[in-house]
């Protein structure tokens, strides 16, 4: 088929369960201008280099080609740091990092270990005696959402609201050509506004009375670079809350699915939990929860693998394809938890590399350690399972397993 239609085929829901043959086609074709004016890159060396290329912007306002599916533009809030370039991106990210990681708070993620284990054990314990489990609803979803709400200081009772807002916001990111985008985008904007207002007032309520959570730290922390403004705090908090669980749900579910498809490896990991950290890295390579980065734009004409990508054109970095590049990974379509030199791009790379990566890593390690013993005697009820719509944030919508 025509290489100009690759992006359309990748985003087509019909290919959600197995986009990997399309990625092989992408790597074979090199960089090709798509019918919508975007350019796709799917080879490891090129994607890795572009992740570090200062000529690429993450700010969609630098696009000259109109987006096929423009993201909702918020009139009331600044973009969060995922959609900004340095120095703004760097300033906001560093201010936010002060309450999450080194150098200011090196022990935050490590200190979460015990609490996450308790939540995972409780969820896994509740599976006892069941004959049918939906791994997404019963386990992969509640774990990360509980953890991120606790970390930020969002009351557990408000999780249903968080879920409703997140669903509306994510729905607008999805490519569904048969749907009219406008109502989706309006719903997403409304959800973003409500979520931002909700998180902003939670934070405001803690001003002057630190309570040990991240919202409280963001509003009270006064470091050498000052603090976030009110609107910056709201944008950042929305980003942390959504990105802080949405992707991890998919990583855990993709992990369970992959291991159920490789029962020998499931048994091996259950018996040797010390192999799990390396297995999670392999999952991030083999079934990354973020398949591609759709929002990069060159600030000047650049050459990628011999092709000129013009300034302002959407440039899509297909991480999941780079992760299967045979020039970088021997036998790339094999899931091998013992793989050596596994420098996957599952968390992106460069200045925008995943902020929450260390949290996602330990959550998924703990999740698999708690879940795998419970899966003894279970098999997939459907293979492939029904997938969520998004080609970007890819993962099962449900993952039913049954005894037998």
């Amino acid at each position, binding site marked *: 088929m025509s290489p100009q239609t690759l992006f359309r085929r990748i985003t087509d829901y019909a290919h959600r369960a197995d986009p990997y043959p399309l990625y092989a086609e992408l790597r074979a074709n090199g960089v090709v201008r798509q019918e919508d004016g975007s350019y796709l890159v799917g080879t490891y060396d090129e994607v890795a280099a572009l992740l570090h290329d200062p000529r690429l912007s993450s700010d969609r306002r630098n696009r000259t080609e109109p987006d096929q599916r423009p993201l909702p533009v918020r009139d009331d809030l600044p973009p969060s740091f995922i959609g900004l370039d340095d120095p703004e991106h760097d300033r906001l990210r560093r201010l936010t990092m002060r309450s999450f*990681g*080194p*150098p200011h708070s*090196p022990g935050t993620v490590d200190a979460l270990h015990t609490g996450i284990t308790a939540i995972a054990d409780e969820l896994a314990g509740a599976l006892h005696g069941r004959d049918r489990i939906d791994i997404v609803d019963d386990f992969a979803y509640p774990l990360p959402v509980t953890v991120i709400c606790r970390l930020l200081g969002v009351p557990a009772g408000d999780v249903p609201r968080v879920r409703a807002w997140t669903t509306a916001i994510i729905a607008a990111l999805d490519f569904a050509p048969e749907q009219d985008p406008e109502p989706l985008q309006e719903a997403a904007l409304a959800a973003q506004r409500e979520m931002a207002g909700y998180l902003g007032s939670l934070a405001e309520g803690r001003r002057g009375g630190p309570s040990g959570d991240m919202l409280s730290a963001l509003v009270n922390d006064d470091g050498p670079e000052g603090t976030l403004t009110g609107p910056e705090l709201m944008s950042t908090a929305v980003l942390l809350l959504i990105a802080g669980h949405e992707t991890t749900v998919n990583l855990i579910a993709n992990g369970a699915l992959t291991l159920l498809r490789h029962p020998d490896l499931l048994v091996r990991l259950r018996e040797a939990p010390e192999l799990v950290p390396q297995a999670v890295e392999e999952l991030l390579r083999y079934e990354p929860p973020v398949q591609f980065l759709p929002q990069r734009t060159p600030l000047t004409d650049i050459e990628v693998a011999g092709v000129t990508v013009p300034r302002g054109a959407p440039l899509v970095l297909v991480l999941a394809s780079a992760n299967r590049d045979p020039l970088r990974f021997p036998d790339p379509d094999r899931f091998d938890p013992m793989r050596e030199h596994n420098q996957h791009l599952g968390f992106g790379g460069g200045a925008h590399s995943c902020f929450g990566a*260390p949290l996602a*890593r330990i959550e998924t390690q703990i999740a698999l350690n708690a879940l795998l013993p419970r899966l003894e005697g279970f098999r997939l009820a459907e293979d492939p399972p029904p997938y969520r719509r998004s080609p970007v944030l890819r993962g099962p919508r449900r993952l039913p397993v049954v005894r037998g």
Partner: protein
Amino acid sequence: MRIVVDLNRCQGYAQCVFLAPEVFELHGEEALMYDPAVPDGQLERVARAVAACPVGAVLAGERAGPGGG
């Protein structure tokens, strides 16, 4: 167990500091300090740090050089 960080490869992602904060330490934004002799109580955390390094810069045991195990 001994560890070595290949500082030519290190790009300051700091995953090791998040995952084993008593062994690895960031001085300022980028300078990495670490304890090359890992105490027994930190082995599990260091194993997670080794697996997590996005550029494979943290070498442990035999890979940390002769007598490293």
